[in-house]
């Protein structure tokens, strides 16, 4: 039995919207799981149901062997870090962290010790007497984390906690969250719409779309073997190129380009996916295209081009000298392509 089990969880809002549909998921103790998906896909709703902030329409959630469907949020022993931190504006940092402990009837001395320990761990021990309004974004983030950590809960829930930070701070906090989670070994669920965050943080990633789990797997599995067209497009930056094509006897027809897939598939309406950095540019490549636009990114550059009327991009080292308007030659290796059936979006 897993530490956290979701069985056929469904959430239907009073207005009839189905936010989460028949979702089942098992999470092991100490695991770091990331829910990722576009906004409105139901990932936050799922998290809030685990926290107990939303009623569960159907299905069962059990934590550490107990069904928690009808247990009050305060008794579930979960801690949550909110997107806007939800720090208590009228309390000092110390009291923000101590509040949950006070409500659990823990002695003053113990609260003092715990809060001070966690404050040291997060390097906010100098800020304990300040009010949240006197803190910077990054400091608030740490306090919100501290408030969750100090309670030593069974599960940490993170609801897009990094989206209010600037890019540099976000990367820094991302690493720190990962490090803290490793150090404490507490089961964590992290919700984000940012696939980079998902890839870097998660032991496992759950890709959600329209209230349905599209794929569950390690970052590597998800990246290298996306189960559906949606996952293929959503994970990876820049986005995977998907060419609409017809496949006859294992040969993909994309406009006048032919790619031998080395199988015997016959699909009328298929998508052939290849990641921009899997397109191999070489002087003796089989295919030729014109670079319409070149985006320079420092160490890399991205070239935008077209096959027939279908746009695609390739990512390559910026050491190669290529300008907009130039022609270039490339190969698409059939070991690096992903094939999806357009009728249901699933991998072939």
């Amino acid at each position: 039995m897993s530490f956290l089990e979701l069985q056929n969880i469904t959430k239907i809002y009073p207005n009839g919207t189905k936010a989460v549909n028949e979702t089942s998921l098992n999470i092991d103790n100490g695991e770091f799981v990331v829910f990722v998906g576009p906004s409105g896909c139901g990932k936050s709703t799922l998290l809030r149901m685990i926290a107990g902030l939303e009623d569960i329409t159907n299905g069962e959630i059990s934590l550490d062997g107990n069904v928690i469907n009808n247990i009050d949020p305060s008794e579930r022993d979960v801690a949550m870090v909110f997107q806007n931190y939800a720090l208590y504006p009228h309390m000092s940092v110390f009291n923000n962290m101590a509040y949950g402990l006070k409500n659990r009837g823990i002695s003053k001395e113990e609260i003092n010790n715990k809060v001070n320990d966690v404050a040291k761990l997060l390097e906010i021990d100098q800020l304990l007497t300040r009010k949240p309004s006197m803190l910077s974004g990054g400091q608030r983030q740490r306090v919100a984390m501290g408030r969750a950590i100090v309670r030593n809960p069974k599960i940490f829930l993170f609801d897009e906690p990094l989206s209010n930070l600037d890019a540099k701070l976000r990367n820094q906090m991302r690493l720190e969250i990962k490090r803290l989670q490793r150090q404490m070994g507490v089961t964590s669920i992290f919700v984000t719409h940012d696939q980079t965050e998902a890839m870097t943080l998660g032991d496992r990633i759950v890709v959600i779309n329209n209230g349905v789990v599209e794929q569950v797997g390690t970052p590597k599995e998800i990246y290298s073997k996306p189960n559906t067209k949606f996952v293929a497009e959503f994970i990876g930056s820049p986005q995977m190129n998907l060419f609409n094509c017809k496949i006859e006897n294992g040969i993909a027809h994309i406009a006048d380009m032919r790619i031998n897939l080395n199988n015997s598939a016959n699909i009328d309406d298929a998508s052939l996916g290849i990641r921009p950095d899997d397109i191999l540019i070489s002087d003796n490549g089989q295919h030729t295209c014109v670079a319409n636009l070149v985006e320079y990114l420092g160490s890399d550059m991205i070239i935008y081009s077209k096959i027939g009327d279908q746009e695609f991009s390739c990512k390559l080292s910026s050491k190669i000298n290529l300008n907009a308007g130039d022609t270039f030659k490339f190969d698409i290796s059939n070991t690096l392509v992903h094939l999806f059936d357009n009728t249901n979006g699933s991998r072939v």
Partner: protein
Amino acid sequence: MKFKPLEILTHIILILGVLLMVLPIWFSFATSTHDNVSIMTEGMKFFLGESFSQNYNEVLNEKGGWSEEVTAARMFVNSFIMALGIATLKVVISAMSAYALVYFRFKLAVPIFWLIFITLLVPLEVRIFPSYKIVSDLGLTNTYTGLILPLVASATATFFFRQFYKTIPDELLESAKLDGANSWRFFIDFLLPLSKTMLAAMFIFMFVYGYSQYLWPLIMTTDEKYWTVVMGMKIIFTENYEGVALPRTGERFAYIILSMLPPVLVVVILQRWFIKGLIQTEK
């Protein structure tokens, strides 16, 4: 330092405004320090006289009223109790009812809110006879409870608290829930401290409202022991008009000045808090 013409003009306007408000009070105060003979012969005074302690002492300690049993000091105590009771209960009750309206999802919450809101159209003066009937049937005439109770509900304050609570982000409630706060704790530990400014402001308004009640105590009380300051203003020191005695104008002015003090004090004391809250936005 150089002043621009516009600045000088605005300052003149402000100073005129201040004078307009302060001068009548100053006149009253100056007059209250003179003896009745000089007021009678020379009219209102601008400069201070010599009867300050005599007049104020008489006002506070002389027994007045029809039965000659009530002193002004007693009336101050009554008014203070009434205003304090009304202000405290109004603030507490409306904060709590707004909490119920905003945070508890019960059917009819919206109609109930509007029902509360339309009571603004029915002030005490409109319902004074039914109110009197109820209070007298309950045997509460000539009691502090009777003075305070019919005035403790406030649609205005409920409305303001409701609007304020609605601006508090939901995450705060959710976070507090996860931290183990029940509904009562959330109210005490979060809503009350967050609405400190609001509480102070409402308390000021409601105190002044309670203090300046005239008609209700006039109808409610037959026993002079429960007279309030505002009622007394009409009645006290008028009993000697007839006969040879002079009208006791000096004492009456002293009484008016004293009657202004409690609301002024409440405003001055709470204003500090109020303004502090306005500067440090805590949301």
